[in-house]
């Protein structure tokens, strides 16, 4: 356990060293936030509310939705796929596998460390700017607790998906293709850009079979109290089911992938 805490610390330090990268990511996030708020305002026109599949949604809800979405994105961008791909291609992974550590937990520690440093350097600025320029909605304490649990589960689901795609690198060396496809699917089907409550039925049905909505949409609806406590519990339960399912897929693929692993040179 102490070992893994050291890994987390290490990732935290590495991430905070690349200040320029952090600054650039922050810049992009703030541009994205301003664009989406401007768009929702333009779409709402003069009206303050519109009907959706989850009841009436006000322009204030939409502004808060955009702020939470950019806040969640701070925790979602990880480099698991790229880092695993580099290691498989260079053969470095052989050395990592020799170490007496659980590879998956180690990768997850990197993500956690990165996220902790991002809280201060990326999340806080986004929230301050969001709070200063737009107005904030504060949820009830219970909703906030549910939100935090759902958010954590979402981060884990996102990590497992990227980790599974990283494992596919054992078979297919151009994994960045999957990375791009994943980002595209997440952008639309997670609700990061457009809330699923505005989706037509066909796309809602598709998104129900995908894990992506549990990354952005589910935590945000809980924060905005668009679901009851019971529904929130069901969402969290569904997240756990997805986590278990993804863990199973990961175990099977990892076992097959390790056998398949051929280190080229090195």
């Amino acid at each position, binding site marked *: 356990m102490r070992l893994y805490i050291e890994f987390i610390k290490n990732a935290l330090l590495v991430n905070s060293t690349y200040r320029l990268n952090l600054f650039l990511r922050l810049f992009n996030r703030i*541009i994205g936030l301003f664009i989406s708020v401007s768009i929702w305002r*333009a779409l709402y026109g003069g009206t303050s509310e519109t009907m959706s599949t989850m009841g009436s949604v006000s322009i204030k809800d939409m502004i808060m939705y955009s702020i939470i979405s950019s806040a969640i994105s701070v925790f979602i961008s990880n480099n698991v796929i790229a880092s695993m791909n580099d290691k498989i291609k260079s053969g470095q992974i052989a050395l990592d596998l020799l170490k007496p550590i659980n590879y998956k937990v180690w990768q997850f520690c990197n993500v956690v460390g990165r996220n902790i440093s991002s809280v201060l350097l990326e999340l806080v600025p986004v929230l301050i700017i969001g709070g200063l320029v737009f107005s904030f909605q504060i949820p009830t304490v219970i909703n906030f607790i549910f939100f935090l649990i759902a958010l954590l589960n979402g981060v884990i689901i996102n990590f497992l998906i990227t980790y599974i795609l990283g494992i596919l690198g054992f078979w297919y060396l151009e994994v960045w293709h999957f990375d791009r496809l994943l980002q595209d699917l997440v952008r639309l089907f997670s609700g990061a850009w457009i809330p699923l409550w505005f989706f037509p039925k066909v796309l809602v049905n598709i998104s129900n079979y995908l894990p992506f909505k549990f990354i952005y949409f589910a935590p945000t609806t809980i924060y905005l109290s668009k679901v009851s406590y019971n529904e929130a519990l069901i969402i969290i339960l569904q997240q756990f089911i997805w986590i278990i399912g993804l863990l199973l897929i990961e175990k099977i693929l990892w076992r097959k992938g390790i056998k398949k692993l051929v280190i080229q040179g090195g």
Partner: protein
Amino acid sequence: MDKLLLYFRYVSISLKTSMEYRYSFISHLFIQVFTYSINYLGIWVIFNKFETMNGWSYYEVVFLYSLNLLSYGLSAMFVWAPMRQLGDMVQQGTFDGILIRPLNPFFHMLAKNFTYGFLGHTVLASVVFGICISKLGISWSFMTIIWFVLFIFGAFLIQCAMFIIGGSLSFWFVNSSQLVDTFIYGIRRFVDYPISLYDTFIKVLLTFIVPYAFVNFYPSIYFLNKSSDTLFHPILQYGTPIVGILLFLLAYKIWSIGIKHYESTGS
């Protein structure tokens, strides 16, 4: 004329190289088309729920979006890869190899690095653009066709110029690709939608400082007859070709100053 022939020789060599890796080539195209199809799908989802965006209809916004994507795809085929490589070449010192050839370095870099990777963007944008034009019932006359060609050409030059200015920064700041990417791709995101929906500061920024609005917004004002969305002055809707030429000349000037700067460092 000789240069043009030489350029085509280079391009045909690069096509042959791409074709050697046919699988990689095709999967690359597929991924580009997929990414932008998702963006189009998103716009469709929005307009499935809302009727207008600040008075702009679904096909009008898609027209605007496609004009940006089309000119981006076209320009990126010519200048994306050379400008991306420039940073690495300056860093590793391999740019010296370009300077000792009996060819204009700018021409040589462009000819050597033509990229088919952006064919996906270009084809997809052209198809969607065609659909928009027929759905919007734009009436064509001799004048509109002339303007259309000039606008596409101007937009192409603006997008090229942005890449060239960004790439030339490597002469001063060695590897600046990340910084450039963030500014080019970040700021360009504003013009995916009509800029009339942003605050004055953004409108000024995109018109007078980083003139991406001339890529698609001002031409759309002309083509879609959106006189209600006129910003600053109605004359700006004809500005794209002139802004394109001026910006491209400026970009070439910055490149030339950059090369002189590079020589003087003697790395």
